[in-house]
């Protein structure tokens, strides 16, 4: 996988994960063009399209578009299921995930993604194992934050 983008129906980018080195300018350009292209697709169209020399696999879940760019030889259907698995993970973690969760806990969305995909490839495909790893990290966090809650400044 070369990159994954999550964006809303208004084209607001909620998550961007790049698995290839690109300059900020190139990333912005790609994002702009691709978001436009995908948003222009009609509901009954298939989930795949060719764009530049990549294959784009996308699926909409509620108000969020999940969009992955893969290379010519990669398997489209399995990428669709990568997207689905990621949504399942977010759903299990946040309890009935919605776009707001991804907005307010964006760093968590990245952490969860990293436990599942690394370097653009699926590293752990057991849902149980991924969630376990994330839970462990959360436990660490809770034990740390006990002491910090008092010193929180609002701004």
């Amino acid at each position, binding site marked *: 996988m070369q990159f994954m983008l999550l964006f809303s129906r208004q084209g607001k980018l909620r998550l961007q994960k790049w698995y290839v080195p690109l300059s900020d300018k190139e990333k912005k350009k790609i994002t702009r063009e691709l978001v436009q292209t995908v948003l222009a697709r009609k509901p009954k169209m*298939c989930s795949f399209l060719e764009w530049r020399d990549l294959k784009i696999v996308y699926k909409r879940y509620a108000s969020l578009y999940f969009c992955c760019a893969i290379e010519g030889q990669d398997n489209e259907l399995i990428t669709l299921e990568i997207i689905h698995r990621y949504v399942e993970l977010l759903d299990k973690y946040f309890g009935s995930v919605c776009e707001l969760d991804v907005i307010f806990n964006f760093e968590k969305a990245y952490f969860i993604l990293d436990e599942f995909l690394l370097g653009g490839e699926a590293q752990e495909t057991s849902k149980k194992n991924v969630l376990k790893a994330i839970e462990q990290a959360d436990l660490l966090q809770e034990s740390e934050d006990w002491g910090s809650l008092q010193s929180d400044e609002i701004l």
Partner: protein
Amino acid sequence: MPAVSKGDGMRGLAVFISDIRNCKSKEAEIKRINKELANIRSKFKGDKALDGYSKKKYVCKLLFIFLLGHDIDFGHMEAVNLLSSNKYTEKQIGYLFISVLVNSNSDLIRLINNAIKNDLGSRNPTFMNLALHCIANVGSREMAEAFASEIPRILVAGDTMDSVKQSAALCLLRLNRTSPDLVPMGEWTARVVHLLNDQHLGVVTAATSLITTLAQKSPDDFKTAISLAVTRLSRIVTSACIDLQDYTYYFVAAPWLSVKLLRLLQCYPPPEDAALRSRLTECLETILNKAQEPPKSKKVQHSNAKNAVLFEAISLIIHHDSEPTLLVRACNQLGQFLQHRETNLRYLALESMCTLASSEFSHEAVKTHMETVINALKTERDVSVRQRAVDLLYAMCDRSNSKQIVAEMLSYLETADYSIREEIVLKVAILAEKYAVDYTWYVDTILNLIRIAGDYVSEEVWYRVIQIVINRDDVQGYAAKTVFEALQAPACHENLVKVGGYILGEFGNLIAGDSRSSPLVQFNLLHSKFHLCSVPTRALLLSAYIKFINLFPEVKGTIQDVLRSDSQLRNADVELQQRAVEYLRLSCIASTDILATVLEEMPPFPERESSILAKLKKKKGSMNVPDIDDSKKNMNGNGNVEHNNNNEPNEVTTKVYVRITAKQNCFEPGFKHCQSRGLAHIFSKIVPGFTYVKLKC
């Protein structure tokens, strides 16, 4: 609901995000962001040393602002500081920041690498994973230099935890992609192969991905992986769901791992060992069989996962290209998918069949689906699917069906999306030339292309039709007649004028006998389009006019009058003016013999590579362009053809020959004042033997 209660506690961040969302305008948002940036800046510069929690919060805010699309030029130091914290969450945010905002400052890089080194050596698996994730996410050359030799060691060490092994494998994969020269093969490669036998399927998955990438770089080092992969795949495919529990996905056994193993096997030819080969064949047959069984679940995830494995298996079958029964079965399976309810499956089936079409075992089987594909072209609502149908028709085209396929593609072209027209034009041009038995069909097809999609008919296409007409005596008359008729249309495309102008200039004499296409009629027809055309076309038409003077002395006066007119002789464009002047002069002073010699019919072009195929390959980039093997016309797309003004071979030119005879010693000295690049140059020199002077047509 936002899960703020998940031990998150960064309330300040949540408030900030809320504020941003509540901004009513872009200006308000920028204002709020700037206020926050100022606040964070002052906190970072402040006298009080910030505690880890606050630092984490501010770094996270900066990250959020960056991800919104604003530039951030500070905070890297603080993020790097977080890396050395003992608290997991602080490290985590620090790593996230530096992975997203990659900085090339060498001091920072040094500090980051140090922190990573510490975490890698910490023996704490969560910290090790964080470090490995960071390397995998950034994958910079500096990190590769620092860690490329360390990571294989971690990967194969006996005491490494499974989760760390997974991260290490994919981390190494990333480093190999970005800096392959820094990842040396070594004795660790054998142990990586051995990981395919690991109990933990997550480790096997990661290892398979890694081996697949490395095997493309050094296939011999990983040959031993083939048998392990086949064994593992075979076990998965024949297992009951209960065996794989956590790795079963909607009743499909380990789909991701299966797909990866099948990909790994595509790095190699079919196994040499007979037993292994037959085990693999069995495996593939089982996968194909499962596709025919009733589904275990109605959910789309089940069918997607199952079909993902199926399509990858078909890819492997195609890649091996060695078992006719498997190939035919694959073709039939895809044929079923061509008519499936789900658009995704029809799309993928069309795509997959394209590759099948080029295998000699299955080419005929693919052709049996031609009607379905043509139907798809006509009825599919999704343009991406229609494009795949075009690709497949192109791939399955051969002598037996070329006329029908070209006709279908032409009719599709009439209503096709503008974005795909150029590609279809190139494909039709290639097919028409390749399978032409009767060249009148070829000429008709190209002229149709120009009529339907003139704007998308690139130079390579119409140069080619002219080259072919020049080379083939039998079609010259037909071409002249057809082009003449086509030009009668009130609004014809400029490319047609170019082709018509050239062909009539060369072969107009073949139809001049008929009074309906007499020389004067031909000239008037061309000249009626003159003022509508762009400069290059007009230049071409002027050349056609001088050729007419040679071919048809009876219209010499008419044409000279045109050339003599102010709009030509004083034309603002240099090329047009020069041509008008020189052609006029030539027509006045050259005797009929000289004129005939100078404007002799174009000799045949030598056979060369088709630039059209090269252009098509360039357009498609790295995507599969099925190669047409038939080399009747020496078609291999070697590289790109440059079209420049140095009269490269593929450009159509008017060659002006001068063969020196005694007669040509009578030159008018007056010529010498014309520009040296022009015709005068020939006449002012007397050089024995042949002299070529090329003019662009």
